[in-house]
């Protein structure tokens, strides 16, 4: 069977300790899309993505992943289709060596041994962990541990990958590496759902943005559309990306015409060249 949508959320409500944390969530994520969920801490982002592999089950409403109703499907089965990478790598490294860590889920899902070997080799190479293969995951640096936590999920080739705050606490070089990985995953036609409040990272890497505040989706749409609305970002308690904010100020002052779209540093430089006679 083929489904156009990777994830469909319909009228989802979820409460925890009698407190409503998700209110009437409606969301459609198409296959091959990179969707970024943004909002301040406590907006319900992590609670929402935990519904995508069934760790949490809807109190009301439905979550359908690749045609499977998550309330009817066990986590162990959904996990095969939805790879979940949590924020802190230290909570998700279980094996004694780096290569066993990567092989763990593969073996669990019953991949034949030669396939396990091949996939482990591939992941070690792509994630630049080759020289640490026999080392304990806990002896790696924070950036390497982060990459390993992603590698051990990507290795079993789930069609959907969910990443919670992939850039939190990571330095610039690691962020660049994670960005490259996202690009690779996109090439592999994966569906990617990412949670972050790093606007500068999100603006470069997402097809679509979902803004959340107080357990609700307050807006969703193409990255540029959402990121250009300073008022929407404010409602989600986010700061606009620097270039967008600069362009906003310049347009308000009539230095740049309001109809041109400025998104990247390059856009801004070009707009200056065209409109500002220096």
């Amino acid at each position: 069977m083929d489904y156009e949508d990777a994830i469909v959320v319909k009228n989802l409500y979820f409460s925890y300790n009698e407190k409503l944390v998700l209110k009437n969530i409606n969301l459609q994520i198409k296959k091959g899309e990179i969707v970024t969920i943004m909002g301040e801490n406590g907006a319900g982002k992590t609670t929402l993505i935990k519904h995508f592999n069934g760790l949490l089950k809807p109190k009301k409403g439905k979550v359908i992943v690749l045609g499977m109703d998550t309330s009817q499907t066990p986590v162990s089965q959904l996990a095969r289709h939805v790879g979940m990478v949590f924020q802190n790598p230290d909570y998700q490294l279980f094996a004694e060596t780096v290569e066993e860590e990567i092989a763990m889920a593969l073996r669990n899902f019953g991949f034949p041994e030669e396939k396990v070997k091949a996939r482990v080799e591939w992941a070690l190479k792509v994630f630049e962990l080759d020289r640490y293969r026999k080392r304990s995951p806990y002896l790696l640096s924070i950036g390497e541990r982060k990459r390993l936590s992603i590698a051990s999920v990507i290795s079993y080739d789930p069609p959907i990958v969910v990443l919670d705050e992939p850039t939190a606490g990571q330095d610039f070089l690691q962020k660049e590496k994670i960005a490259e990985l996202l690009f690779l995953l996109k090439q592999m036609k994966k569906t990617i759902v990412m949670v972050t409040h790093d606007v500068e990272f999100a603006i470069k890497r997402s097809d679509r943005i979902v803004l959340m505040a107080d357990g609700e989706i307050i807006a969703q749409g193409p990255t540029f559309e959402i990121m250009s609305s300073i008022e929407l970002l404010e409602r989600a308690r986010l700061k606009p990306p620097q270039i967008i904010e600069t362009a906003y100020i310049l347009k308000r002052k009539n230095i740049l015409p309001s109809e041109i779209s400025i998104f990247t540093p390059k856009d801004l430089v070009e707009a200056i060249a065209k409109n500002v006679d220096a």
Partner: protein
Amino acid sequence: MSMLEGFLYKPKESPLHKLDPRSKAVILVFYTVTSLIYLDPIVLILLLLSVVLLSIVGKCVREWSKSVKATLTFALVIFILNVLASPGLGYTYALAMSLRFLSLAAAFSLYFLTTPPEALALSLEAAGLPRDFTLMLTLSLRFVPTLARDLQIVTDAFRSRGLKLDSGNYVERLYNFAKLLTPLIVFEIRRSLMIAEALESRGFGGAVKPSLYKPPKMSLIDYMITAGGLVALGVIVCYHLGFPQ
């Protein structure tokens, strides 16, 4: 888990909650000594009943009964063991032994349910115990919820890789559980180091004796209860040892 809950402080407004941990401790000592001295089922049942009354005063019958229910199993085991191990002493003895356990557990559960751990630590510190000791007490209780949350996150991560905790035979389950504990233990060790760093950075472990911010104060009722408890304790002990002529 439910048994542990019966020993965790629940904030509430009640006369029992208001008492100073020290005056309550005197009463607790009275209960402990009495139940250890007397192996008479009648006395022990009376003790148990009075704890029931106190739990009503303390507005925590529900939480308290949870811990008592959990200890019932242990009480039953004690009863059976005593019947089997010392058949000569009879059922009354076995009954008294398990009642002793039950009344002790009940009294301690009520004490901890109505006493904030920090108030306890504070009053212990005010009573002269070193801060190292009282801090250990507060820290271990303070990090119970954090540990529970960490366990939840690790379990989520584990299950997200398609691994199951509740299937397979016992060996497999044990193996999986051990795997699950690896990150948790590593993480908690790291956390304890971070806590130690933070403590040192705030001047802990210095050369001077720590002072106390707003030391706990005993009220008039506290003093009365302490006095009453001490007198009762004295009477019980003397009575048991035989009054001096």
